[in-house]
């Protein structure tokens, strides 16, 4: 089945998968909202890149991933981490710089990791983890390990030469990678038009690097789910890499918890029009409409989630900071 066929048709996931897709998006949304709400307390003392508005891509992709599959991310990583099953309390503790953080407080929001969940790393240098993920795929092949590698990045990252180098190597070697570009139109405050050739999408960069590519609505989790199914299965079955581009939109400021339309680089109308396409709420409405969920289910999800998040924040806030000696540990492995 080609992805065009998948999108063209209206193949939909089973009801349980729909619920799971919704649950996962909602969870990321609520966790991010909790960070947004509390950031002003000045206890999360590191940069945070909030992904509200962009919950669908990692959710739809992760639905096809197994535990042993590996995910790589960049600066806007919370959603990628959570969707892959990353330990949420460890992420919150990490943002609070605490000893229970997933990186013992050494990394903060920009260096999430959960090896058990297969979330390998995130890092805030554009495009830098892309080649690392490609090397993971290469190692998997070489060692006969069965896993698919998913690498997330933004539209801005595709301007880095390292991105092209990594894509070329993956294409030449037909590695089991799914490259996922979340195209949210902006790199910080700069529109795509100022940075890349006009009337083109990031998707164009697949074929010259020896791989198929597709783009789709990044606010429609089922469209993501269909495209990802094709790409992940292909990678798993030795069909080589695919570039997927999802069109989506960031709601909050580039870095930090606030609305930033007052800066003037984008209009409040533009933001509102994308909010009207909210991946979470629209999917909820659709699931109610088609009978996949009902209000009681939604309420219970919200309440479970609320408790989970409150507990994580409380634990993170009350948890100990790393000791001073921790500063000198881990420079070299023992």
């Amino acid at each position: 089945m080609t992805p065009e066929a998948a999108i063209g048709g209206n193949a939909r996931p089973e009801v349980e998968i729909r619920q799971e897709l919704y649950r996962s998006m909602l969870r990321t949304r609520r966790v991010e909202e909790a960070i947004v709400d509390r950031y002003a307390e000045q206890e999360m003392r590191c940069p945070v890149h909030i992904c509200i508005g962009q919950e669908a891509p990692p959710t739809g992709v992760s639905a096809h991933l197994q535990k042993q599959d590996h995910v790589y991310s960049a600066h806007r990583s919370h959603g990628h981490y959570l969707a892959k099953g990353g330990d949420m309390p460890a992420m919150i503790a990490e943002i609070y710089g605490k000893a229970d953080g997933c990186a013992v407080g050494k990394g903060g929001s920009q260096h999430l990791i959960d090896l058990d969940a297969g979330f390998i790393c995130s890092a805030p240098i554009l495009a830098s983890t892309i080649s690392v993920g490609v090397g993971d795929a290469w190692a998997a092949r070489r060692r006969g390990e069965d896993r698919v590698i998913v690498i997330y990045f933004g539209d801005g990252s595709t301007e880095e030469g390292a991105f092209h180098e990594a894509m070329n190597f993956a294409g030449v070697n037909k590695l089991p990678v799914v490259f996922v570009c979340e195209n949210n139109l902006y790199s910080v405050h700069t529109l795509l038009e100022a940075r890349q050739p006009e009337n083109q999408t990031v998707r164009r960069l697949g074929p010259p690097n020896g791989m198929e590519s597709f783009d789709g609505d990044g606010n429609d989790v089922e469209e993501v789910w269909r495209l990802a199914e094709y790409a992940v299965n292909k990678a798993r079955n030795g069909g080589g890499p695919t570039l997927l581009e999802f069109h989506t939109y960031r709601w909050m400021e580039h870095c930090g918890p606030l609305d930033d339309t007052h800066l003037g680089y984008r209009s409040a109308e533009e933001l509102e029009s994308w909010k009207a396409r909210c991946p979470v709420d629209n999917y909820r409405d659709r699931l109610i409409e088609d009978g996949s969920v009902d209000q009681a289910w939604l309420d219970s999800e919200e309440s479970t989630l609320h408790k989970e998040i409150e507990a994580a924040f409380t634990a993170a806030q009350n948890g100990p900071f790393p000791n001073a000696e921790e500063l000198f540990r881990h420079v070299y492995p023992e």
Partner: protein
Amino acid sequence: MTREIKYYEALREAQAQCLESDRDVVVMGLGVPGPTGVFGTTKNLVDDYGPDRVFDMPSSENAMTGMLLGASSNGMRPIMVHMRVDFAVLSMEPLVNQAAKWHYMYGGKMRAPLTVRMIIGQGWGQGPQHSQALQAWFAHIPGLKVIMPTTAHDAKGMLISAVRDDAPVISIEHRWLYGVSGAVPEEMYETPIGKARIMRPGKDVTIVAASYASLLALRAAEMLADAGIDAEVLDLRTITPLDRESIVASVRKTGRLVVADTGTAEFGISAEIVCAAVEGASESLKSAPRRIGLPSVPTPTSPALSEHFYPRAIHIAEAAAATLGTKVQLTEPATGKWHDVPDPSFTGPY
């Protein structure tokens, strides 16, 4: 009455005046024409000088550096801005293999009057990849000039000198200086590259420092003064070409040396400064020079760890006292709860 403005405003003014006075000056970098204007240093310049001269770029640090190198050898005097030196690591090839050697390797026929502003900084969980301070790298490369102005006055004057210099100049600016005010003349002026400056004369011990470390050194000198020790603070301002004479002259006078730097101490610029003193004034040295810099550890993100990672003024003062061999009581002024912000009014993120 001289006007006082902040360091970041001085940088902005320098660029505005360069843009105004020379049509061949342009300013480029991620976020340069954007609404926040690289922490205010390029804010609204695009309104006055237009998007052809004050412009953004794709996230392509390597080729965009090469691009401005090519522009610089064809009549332009470009300024490139990196919000963090960590991003500029992607542009080492054009800077180091090419720009630095441009004039030399073509037998003097090419020039690269390119200025690259790189911001370094600390705090608010910038962590391992957003807070490096790589002045030692650039200083090690023949053909580059490296400046690290400390005061708002020098920030303006040295940036103007850099733009007018026919060599490639790397300007390393510490974020924690951006909010510090100082007297800055309104007219356009040059502060020469290559001359250190005595910020505070003293006779007991020399503290050589640069950039934000010079501010810490001044504070250390105050603590030392309270304890009866008269420290001289020599603000390097330029890393290469290094003003060896001023270092030697000061050490000849005081006989003691502490070097403070914002980068990693090991294999860092402080080692060269110690050598300058040892090679030029060894007979005057009454005790072994000491260095204050970062330990050989990547920057931790948690404020609980970065607190122990970054040296403070008290550490410089202690080192200075130790070169005198005297046991003195040094008092650190009360600090806020957090050490990861330049002052308590600061709210993250940045």
